[in-house]
C-alpha cells in the first residue's frame, strides 16, 4: 500500500497514529478464545428454534401451538400474540412486524413463532409441530411486478409519499425521492453525445461469516441481560425495547465479539424473540441462526432497476443527467432509494439533472444496510454510462471524470456545497500509478469507476481511566468490527504520549459506558475517536493540575510532554503517569474522565478504482488480474486496518458484480441460501487488492480522519462491467456478470 500525502499539508510527525500495532483482540481471535454471540453459555440455558413462513405472501389465519407446548423439553412457545400490538411511527411498526409476523407472512422465512426447549433438537421438533393455517396470496418478486397495475398489494394502506398530487389508492410504492437542477431538456438539447440504458442489479447479502446469535436471561424482577454480536448494542437495546414494549433501561446488552456486519447487523432479528422466550420460560434462552436462516430471514441489499441517460459535449463536459430508479425494499418500506438518488451524480458537476428514486415493497426479506447503502447500484448505472460516453468520445475514462470532478466549493447534486474533499486526488493517484500503463493482452480489459459516500458522525461516548500502575483503560461502546480498538489505542497513545501497549481499549456494555450509536456508517474512528480524544484531554488537563498541586506551582507552569508532566522551566523532575497515579488520593482522587458528543466535522469520502481482468471467450469465465483502489481517508490511524477496509469493500463489490445474487423460484422461495450457490468470492479468486490511501486531512477531526469503511464498495460494480466491455466489446447492464451471462453476450451479439 502507498500513502500519498496531500501536498498542501505538512507531515505531522505522529509517534503512534499511522503505525501498525498488533490489534489488541488479535490473540484471542486467532486462538479461538474470543467469545462470539454463539459461544455464550449460561447455567440452565435453553435453546430456541424459530418457525418461519414457507410462503412468500400469505395471510396467517390461525396458529395452534398446543401440541408443541406439550412436547418433551419444551419450556416456552411464542407467537406475535406474545408481543404488544404494533404501535408508533410506521417504521417502528414495520420493525415490530418484521421481528415476528402478525396478520401476514410477507416473505419466505418471515418469523411466525419460536420455541425454547432443553435441546436444539427438541426445540426444532416442537416448532415443526406448531400448526399454522395460511391463506396463500399471490406474490411480487421484482419492481416491475410490484409496480404493475393491479399488482397484489403487500400493505393495504401503503400510499406513496413524495408524489404530487398525492395518490388516492394504495400501491407497493412506499415513496419517491427526487433531486432536480437546471433544465433537463435544454441540457440534452445541448449535448453532442447522449448515452442511455436500463440497468438491473439483484439483491445481495453482506456475506458476514458469523450468523446472528443472541442469548437472553430475564430475572424475576423483569430486568433482562442480552448478549449478542451486533454493530451497536445500544441500538439493539433501543430497537428490542420497541418490539417488547419496554423502556430501554430494562435491558442490559453486553456486546460479544462480532464476525462481520457490513451493515447487516445494525438491526434486530433474534433479540426480542430470545427475551420473550426467556421471560416465559424463566430460564436463559439462546437463539442462533443457521446459514440458511441468515439468507432467508435477515436483510440483504436491494435489487434495483435503473433507467439512465447522460449527455456530454464533445470535450467530455457532462451537461445533462437523468435517472429513473426503483429499489426493492423487501417486505417493508425502507430501501436506500433516497441515498442512491443523492450519491448517483454527486462526484460530478452536472448543471441539468433529474433523479427519481422509488422505494418499492416486494415479497422478499426486508433489506438492511450494506456498506454505503443505495450508492453502489446508482453508481453502477452512472459510471457505466460515463464509460460508454468516454469510448464514444475517444476520451480516457479518468480524463472524462477529471473534467467533471467536484472540488471544494462545488455544489453537490444533492444540494450543499462541498468542503475540502479528495476526489481529484484519487483520480490522479490512479492515473499516475504504473498499473494504469500495464499493457493488456488478448481477451483482457481494463475498467475504471469512481464513487462517493457521505460518512456519518452521530453520538459517541468514551471513558478513560488511569490505573494505579500508570496504564490506561479506554472504554467505548463501539463494537469492534474493523480494528477500531487498535485505532482507539493509537489515538489515546498519541494524546498521552505513552506506548500504545499501555493502553487497554475495551468495549463496554450498555451499563458501563455512555450511549454510543452503531459501528457503521464509517463513523467510529471519527466520532468515537473524537470522544476518546476529548476524554484523554480532560484527563491530561487533570494530570497537569495534579502535578501543579504537587509542585505547588500555577497550572500554566506545567506541560504534558511524552507521557509526563514537566515543569516549563525545568525546575522539577518530571512526573510520569504512574507517579501521578500513585499519589492520586492526595491530589484529588482517582484519575478518570468521560466525554460524549454528537460528532461534527464529518468528512465525506471518494474512491476511484481500476480493474484489469481476463475473460475466457469460450466459457465466459472471468479472472481478475489486478485491482487498484485509491481513496481519500483523511488520515490513516492504523494503516493496515484502513487498507483492510478498502480491500474488503472492493472484494465485496467484485462479488456483487460477478457472481452474487439471490435466486428465487416461482413460489418466491430462495433457491440458494448457502455459500455453495450464493457465490461470494473465495480468497483464491482474488489478486492482492492494491490500495492507495490519499491523505487529504479532514479539517473537522483532531487527526484529520475521514471515514473509510464504506465507499470502497461503490465503484467495483461499474469498474468490472466496464472492464468486461473493454475485454470482449459487450456492454452488459444486468448484474451479476456470471459466466453464463457473459458467454451469452459474447455468442449472441445482437440480442
Amino acid at each position, binding site marked *: 500500500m502507498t500513502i500519498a500525502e496531500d501536498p498542501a499539508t505538512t507531515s505531522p510527525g505522529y509517534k503512534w497514529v499511522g503505525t501498525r500495532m498488533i490489534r489488541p483482540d488479535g490473540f484471542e481471535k486467532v486462538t479461538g478464545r474470543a467469545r462470539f454471540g454463539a459461544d455464550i453459555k449460561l447455567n440452565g440455558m435453553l435453546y430456541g428454534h424459530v418457525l418461519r413462513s414457507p410462503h412468500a405472501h400469505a395471510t396467517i389465519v390461525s396458529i395452534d401451538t398446543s401440541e408443541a407446548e406439550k412436547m418433551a423439553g419444551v419450556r416456552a412457545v411464542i407467537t406475535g400474540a406474545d408481543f404488544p400490538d404494533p404501535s408508533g411511527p410506521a417504521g417502528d411498526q414495520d420493525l415490530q412486524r418484521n421481528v415476528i409476523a402478525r396478520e401476514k407472512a410477507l416473505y419466505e422465512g418471515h418469523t411466525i413463532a419460536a420455541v425454547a426447549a432443553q435441546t436444539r433438537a427438541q426445540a426444532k421438533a416442537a416448532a415443526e409441530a406448531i400448526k399454522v393455517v395460511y391463506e396463500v396470496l399471490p406474490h411480487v418478486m421484482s419492481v416491475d411486478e410490484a409496480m404493475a397495475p393491479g399488482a397484489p398489494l403487500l400493505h393495504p394502506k401503503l400510499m406513496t409519499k413524495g408524489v404530487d398530487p398525492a395518490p388516492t389508492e394504495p400501491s407497493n410504492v412506499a415513496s419517491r425521492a427526487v433531486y432536480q437542477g437546471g433544465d433537463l431538456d435544454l441540457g440534452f438539447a445541448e449535448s453532442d453525445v447522449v448515452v442511455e440504458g436500463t440497468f438491473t442489479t439483484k439483491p445481495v447479502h453482506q456475506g458476514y461469516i458469523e450468523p446472528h446469535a443472541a442469548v437472553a436471561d430475564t430475572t424475576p424482577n423483569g430486568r433482562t441481560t442480552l448478549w449478542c454480536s451486533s454493530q451497536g448494542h445500544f441500538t439493539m437495546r433501543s430497537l428490542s425495547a420497541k418490539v417488547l414494549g419496554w423502556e430501554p433501561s430494562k435491558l442490559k446488552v453486553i456486546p460479544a465479539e462480532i464476525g462481520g456486519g457490513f451493515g447487516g447487523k445494525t438491526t434486530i432479528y433474534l433479540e426480542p424473540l430470545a427475551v420473550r422466550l426467556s421471560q416465559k420460560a424463566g430460564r436463559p434462552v439462546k437463539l442462533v441462526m443457521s446459514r440458511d436462516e441468515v439468507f432467508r430471514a435477515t436483510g440483504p441489499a436491494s435489487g434495483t432497476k435503473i433507467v439512465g441517460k447522460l449527455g456530454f459535449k464533445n470535450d467530455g463536459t457532462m451537461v445533462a443527467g437523468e435517472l429513473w430508479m426503483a429499489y426493492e425494499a423487501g417486505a417493508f418500506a425502507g430501501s436506500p432509494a433516497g441515498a442512491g438518488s443523492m450519491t448517483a451524480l454527486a462526484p460530478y458537476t452536472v448543471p441539468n439533472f433529474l433523479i427519481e428514486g422509488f422505494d418499492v415493497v416486494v415479497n422478499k426479506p426486508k433489506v438492511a444496510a450494506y456498506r454505503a447503502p443505495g450508492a453502489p447500484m446508482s453508481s453502477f448505472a452512472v459510471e457505466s454510462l460515463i464509460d460508454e460516453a468516454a469510448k464514444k468520445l475517444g476520451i480516457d475514462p479518468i480524463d472524462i471524470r477529471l473534467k467533471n470532478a467536484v472540488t471544494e466549493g462545488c455544489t453537490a447534486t444533492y444540494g450543499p456545497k462541498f468542503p475540502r474533499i479528495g476526489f481529484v486526488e484519487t483520480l490522479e493517484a490512479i492515473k499516475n500509478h504504473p498499473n494504469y500503463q500495464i499493457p493488456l493482452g488478448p481477451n483482457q480489459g481494463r475498467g475504471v469507476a469512481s464513487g462517493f459516500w457521505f460518512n456519518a458522525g452521530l453520538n459517541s461516548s468514551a471513558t478513560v481511566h488511569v490505573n494505579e500502575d500508570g496504564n490506561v483503560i479506554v472504554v467505548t461502546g463501539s463494537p469492534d468490527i474493523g480494528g477500531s480498538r487498535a485505532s482507539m489505542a493509537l489515538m489515546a497513545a498519541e494524546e498521552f504520549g505513552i506506548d500504545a501497549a499501555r493502553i487497554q481499549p475495551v468495549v463496554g456494555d450498555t451499563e458501563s459506558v455512555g450511549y454510543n450509536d452503531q459501528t457503521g456508517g464509517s463513523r467510529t474512528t471519527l466520532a468515537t475517536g473524537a470522544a476518546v480524544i476529548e476524554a484523554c484531554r480532560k484527563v491530561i488537563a487533570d494530570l497537569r493540575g495534579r502535578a501543579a498541586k504537587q509542585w505547588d506551582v500555577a497550572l500554566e507552569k506545567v506541560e504534558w510532554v511524552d507521557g509526563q508532566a514537566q515543569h516549563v522551566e525545568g525546575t522539577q523532575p518530571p512526573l510520569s503517569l504512574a507517579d501521578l497515579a500513585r499519589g492520586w488520593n492526595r491530589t484529588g482522587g482517582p484519575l478518570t474522565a468521560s466525554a460524549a458528543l454528537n460528532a461534527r466535522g464529518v468528512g465525506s469520502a471518494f474512491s476511484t478504482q481500476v480493474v484489469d481482468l481476463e475473460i475466457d471467450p*469460450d466459457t465466459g469465465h472471468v479472472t481478475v488480474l489486478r485491482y487498484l483502489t485509491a481513496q481519500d481517508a483523511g488520515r490513516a490511524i492504523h494503516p493496515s486496518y484502513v487498507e483492510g477496509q478498502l480491500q474488503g469493500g472492493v472484494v465485496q463489490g467484485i462479488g456483487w458484480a460477478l457472481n452474487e445474487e439471490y435466486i428465487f423460484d416461482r413460489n418466491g422461495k430462495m433457491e*440458494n441460501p448457502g455459500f455453495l450457490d450464493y*457465490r461470494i468470492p473465495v480468497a483464491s479468486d482474488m489478486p492482492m487488492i492494491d490500495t492507495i490511501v490519499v491523505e487529504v486531512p479532514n479539517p473537522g477531526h483532531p487527526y484529520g480522519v475521514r471515514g473509510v469503511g464504506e465507499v470502497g464498495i461503490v465503484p467495483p460494480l461499474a469498474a468490472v462491467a466496464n472492464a468486461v466491455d473493454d475485454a470482449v466489446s459487450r456492454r452488459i447492464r444486468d448484474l451479476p456478470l456470471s*459466466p453464463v451471462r457473459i458467454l451469452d453476450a459474447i455468442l449472441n451479439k445482437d440480442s
Partner: protein
Amino acid sequence: MKYFAPSTVEEAAGLLAQPNTKVFAGATDVIPQIRAGRPEPDALVDLKKIDRLVSVQRTDATWVIGAATPTTRLTGNAELVAEFPGLVEAAGLIGSDQVQSRSSLGGNLCNASPAADSVPAMVINSARAVIATANGGTRTVAVEDVPVGPGRTTLAPGEFVVEIEIDRPPARTGDAYLRLTPRTEMDIAVVGAGVRVTLDESGTVTDARVALGAVAPTVVRVTAAEAALIGSKLDDVALAAAAAAASAACNPIDDKRGTIAYRTHVAGVLTRRAAVIAGQRAAEKNGASR
C-alpha cells in the same frame, strides 16, 4: 443417532444391513446434508478404521484404492499422479485442501451427484467398484453402473463400495479432467469433462474415452466423441468433431448454476481442451509404464 467404527468389512456389512444406517467415511457430504435438514439416520457406520478401505495398493496390473481413502493420499502419491494425472486432478478439485483431507472416491461416487468430479475421471479410466454384498461376499461393476440418478445408486440395502480398481494404463496414455466453476475453489461443477487417449508411435489415437459430468442426471459417456478422436492425431477437425459430439450428447437442465445452452456449449469447449491436455500427457509418456 449412533456411531459405529467396525474394523472389518464383514462387521461393517452386518451393521449396514440394519435399516436406516448410513456409511460414514469422509462425511463431506453426509454432515452438510444432515445439517441442512435431511432426516438423520439411526446409525452412522464409520469405514475409516478398516484397513482395506483406506489403503492404496498397486500390483503389476492394477491399482486398488480403498473407497474411503482421503483424497490427500491420492494427490500426495507421486506414482498415482504420474499414471492418472486426470483422475487425481479431478479428485483434487473437490472442495478445498481441507475437504480433501477427508473426501474420497467412494464417497464421491456413492453420493451420486450429477456434478461429481471424480466420476467422469474414473469412467474414462474404466475404473471398477468392488462392492461388499449383504451375504458377506463382493461383486464388481463398472463405476458408471453405480449411480442411477441424483442421490440414488444401484447399491442394495447393506451394500457398500470397498475398493476402486483401475488397471494400469498402456504406454502413451494420458488422461485429463476439466470443469467450469465460477469460483476457483469451494464450488461445484457447472460442466465437467474427462478425456483419456492412448497414442501409437506416430501420435495417432488408438483408444479414447470421453465422459461428461453435470450435464445429465448421471455421468455421460460420449462414444461418438471417442470415435471422432480415434484414428486422428488430435487435429483441429477431430477435436471440433469431438466437441460437437460432446455438446450433442448433453442432456442438461436450466438451473441456478447454468442454462441448457451454456452447459451444452461449454461441454464441447472443455472436451476439446481436455483432449488436447490428455494428448500432450500421452505423448510425454513414451516409455512403457510398467
